[in-house]
């Protein structure tokens, strides 16, 4: 026993060294056959593999959907052990992969990662993703509209088959019907509403994901629409000048915000808490069904409803990718394919499981599958799929988001 305790660190050091030295040639050959071979051969290669899925772990309902719905099916149908590894932030996943790449680790522990937007861009730019694999997945080919802009691009960055769409999210505002009967439906109306109801509104501070999405709506509405931001950020003319109306708007409403804008909630969780305890009248979410599930849990009042801006709100797609150094790539492909099946997507749509919008093209589903999807009860607080669909705006590309988040600290928080 004592010897073992002594040996452990030595073994650790040696195996770390060995891992770094390994070239992974055998791995590369296997990987090629996975990308060109027939699907049944991928399935048979996947049997018995243990697939680690690294993902943001902050939501009970999402975690339960994976552990109780997806994982048992993977075990039963494909003999794959799907092991969910919770992470605090998708950015931590990228940081860890970046570290693994810089030390030359070829047999990584991550097989599936859940990412999008800036994290996808960082992963793609630094070569952290495996290969163009989505064309191999039967469910992707059958049910996904790969030409749709929200599937072909991830926050403006071409996806190029490096990640498969898992679901979609759309930004909604949340209000209590009994307190705010007719909520503002444009940024101009919101500014007026905030003035009439001082202290009743605020948004999460950057770099919070939802707070950042909120100010992108301000950007679109105060600077004349999203079309102009199609170019990469370093090619657009006078970006600082273009952003000016947004900072002006945010500074104009600041004195009427919660705590006179002296501070902002550091996270969406804090804003939700302020809403739940009645300190502010509105909150927001990048998940259209989240309010409904908070009502189910009893955290939000029963009269909670969601609303959109008349000019539309941001929608984005979130994706599943396979890291460059995954050691169980076949298992990862089979698991991702399974999560794209209509059954898995319909189950995911139900607020009882998660309440996440489907990544599949409804037109490609069979009538029975379409019916099953429309029959899911989204809860009184969630808007209809049709209404959400008719008010979608494309996301801004990730390089702008970084500039805006940094600019907010300089132009709004410090002022």
């Amino acid at each position, binding site marked *: 026993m004592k010897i073992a305790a002594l040996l452990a660190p030595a073994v*650790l050091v040696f195996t770390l060294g060995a891992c770094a030295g390994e070239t992974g040639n055998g791995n590369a050959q296997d990987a090629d056959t996975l990308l060109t071979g027939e699907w049944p051969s991928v399935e048979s290669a996947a049997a018995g593999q243990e697939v680690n899925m690294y993902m943001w772990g902050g939501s009970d309902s999402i975690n339960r959907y994976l552990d109780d719905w997806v994982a048992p099916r993977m075990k039963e149908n494909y003999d794959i052990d799907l092991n969910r590894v919770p992470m605090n932030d998708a950015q931590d996943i990228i940081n860890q992969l970046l570290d693994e790449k810089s030390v030359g680790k070829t047999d990584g522990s991550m097989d599936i990662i859940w990412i999008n937007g800036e994290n996808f861009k960082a992963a793609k730019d630094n070569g952290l993703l495996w290969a163009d694999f989505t064309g191999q997945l039967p469910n992707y080919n059958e049910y996904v509209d790969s030409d749709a802009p929200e599937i072909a691009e991830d926050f403006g960055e071409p996806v190029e088959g490096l990640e498969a769409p898992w679901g979609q999210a759309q930004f909604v505002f949340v209000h209590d019907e009994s307190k705010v009967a007719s909520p503002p439906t444009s940024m101009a109306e919101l500014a007026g509403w905030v003035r009439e109801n001082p*202290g009743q509104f605020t948004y999460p501070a950057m770099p919070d994901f939802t707070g950042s999405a909120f100010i992108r709506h301000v950007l679109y509405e105060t600077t004349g629409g999203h079309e102009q931001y199609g170019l990469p950020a370093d090619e657009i003319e006078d970006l600082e000048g273009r952003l000016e109306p947004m900072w002006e708007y945010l500074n104009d409403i600041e004195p009427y915000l919660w705590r006179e804008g002296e*501070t902002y909630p550091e996270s969406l969780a804090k804003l939700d808490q302020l809403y739940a*305890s009645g*300190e502010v009248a509105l909150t927001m979410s990048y998940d259209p069904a989240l309010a409904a599930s908070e009502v189910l849990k009893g955290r939000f009042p029963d009269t909670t409803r969601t609303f959109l801006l008349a000019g539309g709100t941001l929608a984005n797609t979130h994706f599943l990718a396979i890291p460059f150094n995954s050691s169980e790539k076949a298992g990862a492909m089979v698991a991702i394919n399974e999560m794209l099946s209509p059954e898995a997507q319909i189950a995911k749509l139900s607020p009882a499981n998660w309440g996440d919008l489907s990544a599949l093209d409804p037109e490609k589903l069979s009538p029975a599958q379409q019916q099953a999807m429309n029959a899911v009860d989204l809860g009184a607080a969630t808007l209809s799929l049709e209404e959400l669909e008719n008010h979608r705006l494309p996301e801004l590309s990730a390089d702008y988001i970084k500039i805006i988040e*940094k600019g907010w600290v300089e132009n709004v928080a410090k002022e």
Partner: protein
Amino acid sequence: MWRKSKPYLLLLPAIATIVLLFFGGLFDGLLKSLGYFPAIGETRLELTAYAEVVQSDGFWESLELTLRVAVLSSILAGILGGILGVSLFLLNEASKTGQARVWHRLFQLPLTIPHLVGGYVVVLLFMQSGLLSKLLASLGVIDELTDFPVLVNDPFGWGIILTYAWKEAPFVSLLIYPVLSRIQRSWRDVSRVFGAEKWNFIREIVLPVMLPSWTIAVFIVFVFTFSAFEVPFLLGVTYPGMLPVYSYQLYTSGTFADRPEALAVNIILAALTIALGLVIYYFSKRWQVWKGWA
């Protein structure tokens, strides 16, 4: 040979872990703060990140806030902890039953609560729509919830100071109590013979005995609050944030190219902490703190 090297060998796993994780991380941070980041193709070493940090207002405002909060929380925790320790000591002197032990355990309770939980407790109790505010409003002491003073997420940092004072006072008392318990019961009797009142006894004997270890305890609290993250993150304001929060904001809201600046803040923070640690070490050696007095 075996007998001699055995203790060192047994320490090896612990030391290896510390060296690998702690110093490894610190070293990695130092390299990246100098702009060395091969994964994104940066291999030069330069001090630009440090120059940028030192020239930004954000850093100095953050440092000022950090010092203010750390000084106030350690002094408050020191006073509270000192009073707590002396009271427990006197209680122990006076009572013969196990009553003192019950109090002792009760006051140690905050030690078992993680800082993050402590921070949330303060949020839930003291925010304007918190428990205390609602209680006062329903009792009619204040008319509206907004009349309750802003104690959480306030620019001065009262929420953070409050949390640390509450959380670290038992730690201070825990450190001074063993020293106090060395005071013999007979000394009290002797002091009585010479006509000392209770207050004289405390001032002439108890306070001088506990002073060295009390000072060190306050220093430790200071260094801890100086570099801790979670409580300021939960209870601070968006701008300025305390140094660890400032570094986190830099690290998460910029691109990879902004990382050196965030890590430079961390390295400066670590250097200040180590310097303070050396000061503590120096004084604790000189005063022979753990014996009580030189």
